[in-house]
């Protein structure tokens, strides 16, 4: 699998560390909403198809990347820097809506 880091270019997956489901939304730090915290810490989407994922280019520029990967074909349709997105911009919400629509 190749991931095209926006900074470093196409690199082998061995240079990257998977950092989990990119659809998670971290509750406000002071929030005591236990359901929301539980969902953030433990719930993961597991779609058969396009999935929003976070990968860190740990063997390269160390940036965190939001990657859309098809879990059936491993095809990567988009890679972008996470930073500036707060990890909960369009990236997460769009896929979550999609998952909710399906359910």
């Amino acid at each position, binding site marked *: *699998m*190749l991931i095209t880091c926006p900074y470093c270019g196409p690199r082998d997956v061995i240079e990257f*560390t998977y*950092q989990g489901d990119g659809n998670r939304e*971290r*509750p406000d*730090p*002071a*929030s*005591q909403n*236990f359901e929301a*915290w*539980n969902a*953030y*810490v*433990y719930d993961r989407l597991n779609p058969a198809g396009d999935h929003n994922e*976070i990968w*860190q280019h*740990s063997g390269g520029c*160390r*940036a*965190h990347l939001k990657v859309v990967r098809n879990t059936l*074909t*491993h*095809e990567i349709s988009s890679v972008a820097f*996470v*930073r*500036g*997105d*707060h*990890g909960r911009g369009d990236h997460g919400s769009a896929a979550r809506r999609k998952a909710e629509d399906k359910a």
Partner: protein
Amino acid sequence: MSPRRTDTGGRVDRLKTIRFTFDGVPYTGHAGDTLASALLAKGVTLFGRSFKYHRPRGLLTAGVEEPNALVTVLKGEVREPNIPATMIEIHDGLVAISQNRFPSLAWDINAVNQLGGKILSAGFYYKTFMGPVFGPLKGTRFWMFCEHFIRRAAGLGNAGSAKDPARYERMNAFCDVLVVGSGPAGLMAAKAAADQGVRVMLADLEPRFGGSANWSDETIDGAPAADWARRTIAQLEGRDNVRLLPRTTVWGYYDNNTLAALERVSDHKEQPAKGEPRHRYWAIRAKSVVLATGAFERPLVFPGNDRPGVMLAQAAERYANEFGVLPGERIALFTNNDSAYRVAVALKKAGAAVVAIADIRPELSPEMRKLAAEAEAEIFAGHAVVATEGGKALSGLKLQRFDMTNGTLTGDARSIHADCLLMSGGWSPTIHLASQAGAKAEWNAARQAFLPPKPTQKWIGAGAFTGSFSTTEAIAEGRAAGLAAARGQSTPAVLPVVEAVPGDPDPAPVFEIRANGKSFVDFQHDVTAEDVRLAHREGFVSVEHLKRYTTLGMATDQGKSSNVPGLAIMAEALGKPIPEVGTTRFRPPFAPVSIGSLAAERFGDLKPERLTPMHDWHLAHGATMYSAGLWYRPMIYGHAGETIEQAYVREAKATRESAGIVDVSTLGKIAVQGPDAALFLDRVYTNMFSTLAVGKARYGLMLREDGLAFDDGTTWRLGEQDFLMTTTTANAGKVMQHLEYFLDMIWPELKVHVTSVTDEWAGAAIGGPKARQILATCVTGTAVDNAALPFMGIVNGEVAGVPVMICRLSFSGEMAFEVYCGAGHGTHVWEALVEAGKPFGLVTYGLEALGTLRIEKGHVTGAEIDGRTTARDLHLDWMLSKKKPFIGSAMMDREGLIASDRLELVGLIALDNRPLNGGAHIVEELDEANPHGSIGHITACCYSPALGKHIALALVKGGKARQGTRAHVSDPLRNRFGPVEIVSNHFFDPDGSRMHG
């Protein structure tokens, strides 16, 4: 009568004689021979014994799909089993032996298994050996008794136990177009792509490029097909944008058009050339792939179809035309399609007598009748072979009239005398790589074959692979595929003109002749048509279950010749059309791959070594080094005659009595800098850092998001916006990644930069009652007294002319200081400190003493912060700030994490004064015979010189409430049982008076 070498013809060099042995018998062959062709030329027809029944077996094929003729090659001490004789190029000194026979190939005592054929039918192992015991000869225990004998009788060759001295290589390659297969389609594709100027790789598993051109009687552009192939290859060879890979099996098609290939670089040589590996593993990233992998001919399923002398028609064509070997003198053919007729002509031309062609079809085209006449063969249209005769070699066969509409046999059997029977059951495109790439094959009723699916990755098919079986089609498709793969413009071109015998590519839809006797579907695993039907009668309907139950197609040939006939028989039993039964998905590898090639150069100890700046000094001063993760750290500085225990006890004792110094350069160090650094640390640590004064350090604890403890360490405030965080040695990388994640993902608005500076600093911790005095004698530029350097204070100064940063903090519980300097000055400063300590009795100490001092103090490390414990479990709840949220604060108070029966940190004292063991269980009631009732375990233990006792830290259920009570260690593995007292983890100097001084 027997097989023999022809006087002329073939691509072997009759002037070059090669000597080799098979089962100890010396043979000769010619350059260009395979082991199969060379032995066949000498009249050898018996190559092996079958898997279950030990039936004699000969060559079925001439290529990679060979299921029968598997041999073991011996090279020195090394034995490599299960190699098809058809894939071994002979060389001088080659030593090969046959397999699965005892005591010899010709006289095999297990052949008696044939008589018990019914017993060893499908599912025999499951039925006999699985489940509970009813009677003496059933069940799992019976299997355990029989396994040794069965494994010896059934199976393949034995792997050797000697270390493989061969060298293997891995190569990463990139190209625009990878062409797999070098028949006419592949050659045209490679040439068309290369003409576009792109980077082309052409791989073929055979040593000779050309594929079917090497054995067909066709002409291309007026020359023999093989000459046309030679010319085309010569054109490719000269180009610097083309890489040719003969003897290279492309065996895996992975994501992103990454393909795996095995190049057998020097197996065909007596000795590899200097620097040459045995095998080379290619990881090829191709922008686009042309699959021109051809097709495999299928056997027909009829009684006795496995007798030596029965082979595939195309194999005979190859032996005759490519190797100049006639597989028999009197040859009969049995076919359901036209392709066998050109083989009849080829064998006639090569000098054999073609005595009969039995064709399942009642009607034959005039062209086929003409070819049969050319071969001087008698035609038996609407006939089938119902039996074969002979022992270890074929002597004849029986024909009967056959009605292909209903499968019935009528009339009297007619005997035909023949020493070789060639069969053709149609063709299956070699779609393995396409299937691996991700899509489902599609059944084509006319071709009676699975054709390649629509591409799911960037590949284009050409030639027989697509079901286009004629060379004319192969050439046109090959060129088109090559152009498309290279993204070239399709220009009209004059294609090479092929002159070939005519033929209909569609076979009759018949796979099996049902008559009495064993009809083999899977030759390598000895699966018969009746086994498939038995599986169906027993309720197996899924093709995947059928495969596993009968083991059909699960041998090392992966059913290359047996999958489609097996499926057809299953479909018939189920009363369903073949596409509804479905095909199984092909998985890598296409053909067996040497494990050595996968490891290539990457074997042995590949771990990088991390050495501290003072590493050489430690070695020079008697340190025994210990590998801690990637780091090497001194374990003890042993004196002559000392045991490890004596050494660490001496070091720890001296530290508490005078002073000790230890290398702490391995601690993780992260520079946390920026306007929001303090705010960031408040969120990362459970306790406050924004309130920390510049020039002071604080002990911090981190939790994970789920509220469990993660890591601990001190963080030093060097400036308003400048912190130096230290982590445990083991977690340095994880903590760095943790910080980066939160800065990038969660709080990108924070102006903070984190930098790993572990390798930038050398560190020495010097502790003990004399530590301050020692520093006072060697540190300049600053005072080190209590006023200038209070507990947790930081000062800058110099040691031996080198700038140092000193923080007064203690892990040992003594008055202690960590002295940091630039890594390049590490040894210089270390030596100066050691020198300054000499008058004060300073000792160097290692990890063992470090551990002892920390156990005495009850400090936690990774053994206690084990990913399951909370801050409360470790009595660190005083560090959980209530004034602010932090990572893990929302989750740390969950019910299960605050329960009173959680494992909590305690101290243990051995009441029997004997050593304790890490990992030993703690129990309330001792029961040595039946150990049970664990209430916890020991995480770390030592002999404490300060207490004069064997002590330990442990995690014990409700441990805090148990302090002052007794329990027992229960360690049946090491036979260590005995009473302990549960105490506080703070064994020594609990109020910290020593470190505060």
